């Protein structure tokens, strides 16, 4: 029971934890990680849909729960801790956030399909795709190198450059000219794909947003994605710390439990403090996001940096504390490390976030 959560938030978090444990426990994750190109979380997605989780952010008018990021962030942490695929993060949080910011009937109906769990929707962002007007609509060309959950998406929301400005298109998985190729990455717990568009023709209704509206929506969603990644890393940090502490309590060498040695104790105490700090910063960022506070942007950047780093720090320490067995696949420790390190460099990386903060410091502190 976490004192930082409301009763409702705690119930949601517990529900996710229970579902994950039942349907995709760590042993299943470790087994699937041996074949990352064929990761299957259909059973998990089905259970989550039964709980209404895909619709957490969607408004009640389309069958969603109308919750905020502050309610959803503990769920994202839970998913990070469990190392299960990112279906929830991608569809329910990132794609939902984008659709919420696109006006029009098409966006609304997509949100409804998303909220029901019937449509898995991925987002292919970035500057890799160009769009051109045609008689009947648009034609798209390009290749997005890394799209989370691409291969299981029924629908892909695509960022493209249209007449020199950002635009958001909707692409269906069966659209002609669309090829989705699985990509192997450092992280075998999640699905990543290359999305290739070759002379892909779309009708007028495929354009969800353009120009300033699209630019603003995409910027907003980038922040939501950064926060979701921060939550995933935070979940990893907590799980890795727990695993390390449990081991340190039982493993004996030189006649003592290794947790009594100060080298180990201090390492874990530092990880505890860093995790607590990141957790507070992530919570603050989620609140600032929901309140559209004036310091929202810096708050998200800072949370992204702190959580991104502690995810790696904690999982690295976890391996170290386990000694020799930390280097084997008998433990999930290496999966924590891989996923945490991938989180560090994914969209809006820790490095870029630090740079962005650095560039704003003069403006923030010199008045």
């Amino acid at each position: 029971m976490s004192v930082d959560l409301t009763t409702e938030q705690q119930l949601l978090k517990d529900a996710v934890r229970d579902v994950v444990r039942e349907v995709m426990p760590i042993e299943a994750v470790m087994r699937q990680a041996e074949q990352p190109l064929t990761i299957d979380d259909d059973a998990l997605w089905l259970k989550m849909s039964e709980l209404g989780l895909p619709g957490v952010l969607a408004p009640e008018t389309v069958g969603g729960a109308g919750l905020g990021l502050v309610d959803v962030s503990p769920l994202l942490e839970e998913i990070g801790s469990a190392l299960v695929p990112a279906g929830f993060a991608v569809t329910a949080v990132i794609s939902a956030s984008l659709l919420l910011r696109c006006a029009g009937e098409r966006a609304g109906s997509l949100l409804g399909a998303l909220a029901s769990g019937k449509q898995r929707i991925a987002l292919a962002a970035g500057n890799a795709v160009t769009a051109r007007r045609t008689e009947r609509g648009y034609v798209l060309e390009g290749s997005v190198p890394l799209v989370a959950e691409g291969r299981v998406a029924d629908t892909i929301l695509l960022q493209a450059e249209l007449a020199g400005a950002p635009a958001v298109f909707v692409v269906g998985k069966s659209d002609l000219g669309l090829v989705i190729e699985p990509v192997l990455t450092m992280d075998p717990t999640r699905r990543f794909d290359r999305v290739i568009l070759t002379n892909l023709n779309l009708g007028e209704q495929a354009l969800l947003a353009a120009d300033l509206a699209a630019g603003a929506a995409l910027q907003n969603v980038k922040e939501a994605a950064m926060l979701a990644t921060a939550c995933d890393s935070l979940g990893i940090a907590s799980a890795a710390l727990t695993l390390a502490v449990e081991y340190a309590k039982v493993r004996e060498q030189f006649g003592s439990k290794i947790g009594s040695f100060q080298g180990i104790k201090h390492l874990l105490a530092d990880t505890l403090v860093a995790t607590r700090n990141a957790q507070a910063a992530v919570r603050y960022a989620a609140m600032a996001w929901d309140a559209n506070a004036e310091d929202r942007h810096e708050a998200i950047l800072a949370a992204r940096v702190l959580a991104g780093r502690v995810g790696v720090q904690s999982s690295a320490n976890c391996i170290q504390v386990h000694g020799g067995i930390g280097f084997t696949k008998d433990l999930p420790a290496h999966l924590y490390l891989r996923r945490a390190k991938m989180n560090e460099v994914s969209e809006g990386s820790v490095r870029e976030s630090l740079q962005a903060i650095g560039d704003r410091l003069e403006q923030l502190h010199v008045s």
Partner: protein
Amino acid sequence: MVEITSPSFESAAHREFRQEVRQWLAKNLPTGWGTAAFQPPRTEDGEHAFLLDWKRRLYAGGWAGLSWPKEYGGRGATLMEQAIFFEENVRVSAPADIGTAGTGYVGPMIIDEGSEEQKKRYLKPILTGEEIWCQGFSEPNAGSDLASLRTRAVRDGDRFVVNGQKVWTSGARRSQLMILLARTDTEVPKHKGISGFIVSMDSPGLDVRSISQINGASEFCEVFFDNVSVPAENVVGRINQGWQIAQSTLSHERFTLTRAFEVQFLLKNLVQSACQPYPGRTDRPIDDPSVRLQLADLYCEAHAARCAYYQSINRHKVTGTLGYDMQMGKLHTSELTKRISDTAISILGTAGVMGEVAPRLGGEVAWYYQFVNTFRNTIAGGTSQVLRNVLGDRVLELPR
């Protein structure tokens, strides 16, 4: 529900309180405070008189004993209000509360553990600033291991006779009273034979000597006890229950030890310093992308410290306890103050190593002063190493 307060989205009540503090500070700080226009006192006596006057203003403004229950002359402020008050003071670098030992932890300890007579006699003068207190706990052989203290108090009729030595006694030279921990029983386990006493600094046989500190100040003192007579009614709580007094005092003190706001303040100053050209040049440290990266890193840590601190206070609202949050905060922020000052010297070039030897009240503090000064932070109030042990043992429940 637990929330983290921020000036961007705090409750209306907290926002009003914050405004009230800001306005009072703006009205009561001397003209030009924090700028070159302010003329600070030039002598130590002058500084002391200034600080005593500030203490009286705090009392007149109703801010002394903010945390104390109203029945004892305080304002009964919640932890959140205390934190907001603290934050606003740090924001404008307000003068230190010279009576902070009294209002921060001696007073609350007397409220918790003292007799009615002691409360009547000692509480009000703490608030008004008439009596300043110091803490006689640490000894040359009892620092981190406080329970090993050896200063001895032997019963002799209606008084105790005290012999021994205390060290690191902050502000002893300017104090009228001391809360002393002394050994009253040598036959029992060490922390069961300690008692707490109220001692007048005027007592015959009590000798105070300043310690020469590396930051140039001499606020810490050694205090020697040579057959010092302490009336029996000056025992706080019961004989041999002094360890409880120590715990109560230290836990109140811990709340005041956070540097969550100080690190924000230091970071802001560092950014401002980094926006000044290097001495004799036109380019500035902040123009260098690698400097910006270093500063951004510190920004994130300082931001986290503040979030974690406010989160702790909110947890306390729900659970009634701070748990080990203050120890975590102290460990993190004390180390961070060192990192910030260290970075300052490293990135500012020669600008960081010049300036006044000792900080002037209300004036700018040279970075090299800060750098040396921050070394105290990871030692006093629980060393970083001891704190890591405490967190490992009590929070992570690792084997001892």
